[in-house]
């Protein structure tokens, strides 16, 4: 068996090779060659990930940590950072998702992008993204993670603005980068706080040094440090208040939305918190903020999702909402559940984005679901796989989303850091999700066709449908490795493999007497589970009826809500508020600074000073005659005069 250092090196470098091979011949329009190179590069990485996973399985539970350090990157005084990478129980899940789902999405892209002029460049960017994403999850210190963190942001920028001749798309890329940078700035300061407090940024060491005493203040170093890191996460993982870039990011090619803006990059914030769980646990105030922000984002984004008509925008808001669930999970200390939902979401959301890509492809670039309907009969594979994804996301048992979402809801209720309000928000989110996803299904695939006569929808080719089928399978069975104890024991001792696998790395919330619900309270767990599933099911059925059986009823409902509907439809005018409240004033301020301070104050003042000092400006005037020799002479004379005066006395 290959040693792990070599495997990690190949894992990381294979996408770089792919990037260079495609990047250096970026003008080529040979989509088969470019796609094959890029896909092969990621498949190689996937194979390495699987081999590393097998090595971890071989090791005993306490020693499941394969570390490698390639070279010393930065070393100044006490600040030392290695180009070091770690594969352990958590990061191995991430690399399997990134390279596994990544491979499928690369494959899908061959079909999806085959007519595009920039296809080789596209694949180069995609490989570069995989490389950066791997650095993000494997980095052994916060700073190496940050390298990937910014790197994926860069790739996201390049891919969102991939069709750069469209000004709006280029602007969306820029918006993504700059919004992310706001989070990154906080992340940087957060790193400083932790470095000054603990003297290291190595995550293994940080976790070992994590204090044993809760920092229950608001201004303590641990609270501030973790809070700043979380602000970084709100940028990358699109949470309130920095989520605004993600819906716009749908300007990029659809497979990019699947890979970057659903399955991998946007989950980085959740992953980062899970990595540092021993420290986050010690900052209950940060955790509380995370849970509240997560729950609010889950509900807010879901409401916007109810009113959108762009197939990708619905999925985008759904992603924001689902990410909110993951933050809700980590916020109440259910790190394992957060990671679990991260994985199942990667499966079903990648599936649905690729499915929407297949729809858009089959509909000749149409994205408006009002112009679809009845696609079921034209695109049977896309429909069926999408259907499975739909069942997963609305949390119907036994599809993947059910297990992870249920785990989060139960933890939100029962954890010592949980609260019934958080649970309620989660259930509300689930109900809304069931509604808008069913609406999406109904308007796209079911009901009467509203397709324009000039459009002839068709099913996509194999390179696109195979990834759909694989992801659909994963969306069905992906949740079975984390079956809750209550169900597992009822069905005859099915173990929760997920929990078991992560156990050595997941810190438990220190129990506080009198708070939270005893974990053994299985009847309550089952009741809550049934409540949320039934409510979501009812919501889905009503959406089904509303959008397939009683056409026009949706418009009536929208009308009934009046201005409230308008507000939600316009995304609560958050973008407009940011422009009016921050961006425009800043640009105006800058113009004024330039005009009033630079041009009209400093410059005028300096010339005034020169004037006064030299008797009415004759000096300036004399200088401005452009006679160079004269000036050279001034210097000479000046030097001599001053020297002789002072030195010879």
């Amino acid at each position, binding site marked *: 068996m290959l040693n792990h250092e070599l495997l990690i090196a190949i894992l990381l470098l294979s996408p770089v090779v792919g990037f260079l091979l495609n990047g250096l011949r970026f003008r080529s329009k040979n989509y088969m060659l470019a796609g094959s190179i890029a896909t092969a590069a990621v498949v190689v990485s996937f194979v390495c990930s699987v081999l590393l996973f097998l090595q971890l399985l071989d090791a005993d539970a306490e020693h499941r940590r394969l570390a490698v350090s390639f070279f010393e990157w930065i070393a100044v005084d006490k600040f030392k950072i290695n180009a070091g990478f770690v594969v352990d129980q958590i990061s191995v899940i991430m690399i399997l998702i990134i390279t596994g789902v990544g491979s499928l999405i690369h494959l899908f892209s061959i079909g999806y992008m085959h007519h595009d002029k920039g296809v080789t460049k596209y694949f180069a960017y995609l490989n570069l993204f995989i490389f950066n994403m791997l650095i993000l999850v494997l980095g052994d210190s916060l700073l190496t993670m940050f390298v990937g963190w910014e*790197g994926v942001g860069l790739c996201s920028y390049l891919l969102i*603005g991939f069709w750069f001749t469209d*000004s709006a798309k280029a602007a969306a890329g820029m918006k993504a980068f700059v919004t992310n940078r706001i989070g990154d700035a906080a992340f940087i*300061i957060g790193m400083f706080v932790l470095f000054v407090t603990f003297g290291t940024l190595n995550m293994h060491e940080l976790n070992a040094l994590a204090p044993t005493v809760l920092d229950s203040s608001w201004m303590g170093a641990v609270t501030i440090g973790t809070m700043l890191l979380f602000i970084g996460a709100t940028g990358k993982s699109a949470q309130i208040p920095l989520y605004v870039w993600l819906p716009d990011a749908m300007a990029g090619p659809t497979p990019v939305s699947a890979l970057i803006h659903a399955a991998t990059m946007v989950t980085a914030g959740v992953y980062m918190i899970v990595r540092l769980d021993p420290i986050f646990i010690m900052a209950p105030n940060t955790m509380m903020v995370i849970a509240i922000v997560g729950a609010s984002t889950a509900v807010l984004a879901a409401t916007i999702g109810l009113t959108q008509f762009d197939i990708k925008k619905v999925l985008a808001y759904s992603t924001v909402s689902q990410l909110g669930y993951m933050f809700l999970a980590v916020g109440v200390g259910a790190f394992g559940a957060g990671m679990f939902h991260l994985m199942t979401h990667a499966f079903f959301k990648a599936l649905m984005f690729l499915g929407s890509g297949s729809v858009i492809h089959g509909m000749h670039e149409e994205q408006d679901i009002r112009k679809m309907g009845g696609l079921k009969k034209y695109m049977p594979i896309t429909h069926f796989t999408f259907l499975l994804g739909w069942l997963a996301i609305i949390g119907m048992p036994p599809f993947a989303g059910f297990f992870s979402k249920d785990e989060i809801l139960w933890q939100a209720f029962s954890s010592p850091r949980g609260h019934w309000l958080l649970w309620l928000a989660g259930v509300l989110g689930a109900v809304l999700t069931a509604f808008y996803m069913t609406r999406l299904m109904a308007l796209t695939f079911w009901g009467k066709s509203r397709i324009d006569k000039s459009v002839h929808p068709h099913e996509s080719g194999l390179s696109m449908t195979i990834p759909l089928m694989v992801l659909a399978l994963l969306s069905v069975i992906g949740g079975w490795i984390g079956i809750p104890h209550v169900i597992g024991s009822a069905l005859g001792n099915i173990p929760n493999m997920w929990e078991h696998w992560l156990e050595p790395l997941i810190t438990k919330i220190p129990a506080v007497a009198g708070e939270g619900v005893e974990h053994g309270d299985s009847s309550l767990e089952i009741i809550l589970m049934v409540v949320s599933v039934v409510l979501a099911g009812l919501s889905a059925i009503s959406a089904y009826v509303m959008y397939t059986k009683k056409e026009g009823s949706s418009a009536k409902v929208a009308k009934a809500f009046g201005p409230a509907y308008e507000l939600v439809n316009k995304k609560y005018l958050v973008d407009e508020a940011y422009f009016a409240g921050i961006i425009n004033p800043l640009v105006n301020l800058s113009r004024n600074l330039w005009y009033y301070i630079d041009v009209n104050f400093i410059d005028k003042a300096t010339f005034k000073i020169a004037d006064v000092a030299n008797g009415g400006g004759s000096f300036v005037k004399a200088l401005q005659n452009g006679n160079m020799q004269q000036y050279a002479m001034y210097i000479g004379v000046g*030097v001599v005069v*001053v020297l002789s005066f002072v030195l010879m006395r």
Partner: protein
Amino acid sequence: MILSGLIFLPLLFALIITVWPQRNTVRHIALGLSVIEFVISLAMLQKFDPASSALQMVEKTTWIERFGISYFVGIDGISLMLVMLTTFLVPIIILASWNSIDKKIKGFHAALFILQTAMLGSFLAMDAILFYTFWELSLIPMYFIVGIWGGARRIYATIKFFIYTMAGSVLMLLAIIFMMRLTPEVTGGQISASLLDFYKLRIPFIAGEFFTAQTLLFFAFALAFAIKVPIFPLHTWLPDAHVEAPTPGSVILAGVMLKMGTYCFLRWVIPLFPEATEHYSWIFMAVGVIGIVYGALVAMVQPDVKKLVAYSSVSHMGYIIVGLFAMNAYGVNGALYQMLNHGISTGALFLLIGMIYERTHSREISKYGGLASALPIFTIIFVIVTMSSIAVPMTNGFIGEFLILLGSYQYSPWVASIAVSGVVLGAAYMLWMVKRIFFGPAGEIVKHAAHDKEHALHDLSVRELVVLAPLIVLIFWMGLFPNHFMDYSKASVDHLIKNKMGYSLVLTGEGK
């Protein structure tokens, strides 16, 4: 002799250029000579001992005995990389100006070589008067480069540049002379202009009282260097000088001349006036941070792309000042690194802007748009350099900026919290500019070029790629393996930080 060789060979080159008989081979000769100079500096780098904080390869001979002025040069980790940057950039500049400088070719190259002598002399001189001579000498060729080969408002710009810098220099000269008069205390009666003797002076400092020797001297020096850097609010000469300067002038100005200011803070201000530096560091922290934010904001609204980059320099130089006055290992190492980074990435930006200006004769951002479709390779390189400028990890800019921020955090979390806004604003103004120039539908210029065969836009030529390639390589090399560069300066910086109260340098080399 290697340092003297480095300093004065360009002067000899200037002479060769002026008397060279064939006009059409002047460029080739100049390029060859500048490469020779770079190779010599590489040899010097080989000889340099990075583990030592001593002043190395010292040469010292009496110059004007009566005033204790000597020809005294030496190199340490603080000046080494800046010397390398200077010798590295000159051949690039000569190759870059191959087509754009088309009048008075001899004069241009002679001025460039004289400037190189002056810049290297300023970095290497260890005698105050020798230093002052080189410092002032650097102004004259720059004055001509802007004034003769510059744009429409070149005379205004070059005089503004001159007045500002001279105003500072006069104060500095007075301060130098004052300090020379103090030296008999430490040399046993002999007046001296040696910087090492200056280091021995313990100039009295009284906290809070402005009119004391150390405080006044500190501000006299600091003001001269602050103008050169330039630090807010003394920066307004820079945008004008940059806009009017020809491309090679802008590159030298941004790449090296601004660093003369920041370098001198390390060589002169901090070790000479440690108490005053510490006491008044908050002022420099404040103007540094203001510079970061102000430069970035004003850069954002510039209609002229060259002016935008000039204001971005103000912002970046603000970072360097913050790093220097944090006075800890992170800040100072980061600042020194950022000096190189800024030379490379801003130098590259000016080169790129020059290249596009040669094609379109416009720098107005609003006239562009959609350039990426017309010039794909140019666009790729421009975006790479942009990433370096906004400090994306794995490029050189990140290392410097991160260390500076870390240093400033150690100085005060508040300073770091404000300074870090530059991370956001930098991305905003650079990417917005990139978007308006390269992306979107074809703008006026691109449309015009598409219709007009004569003015069709050609992507980068081989010569231009050769100009840019070393810079691109350095951007990644310095970003991925910063130790390859920083290891040369760590010992000296460490020595300075640890011994700033009572700084002295050990000498090695011929003249010790």
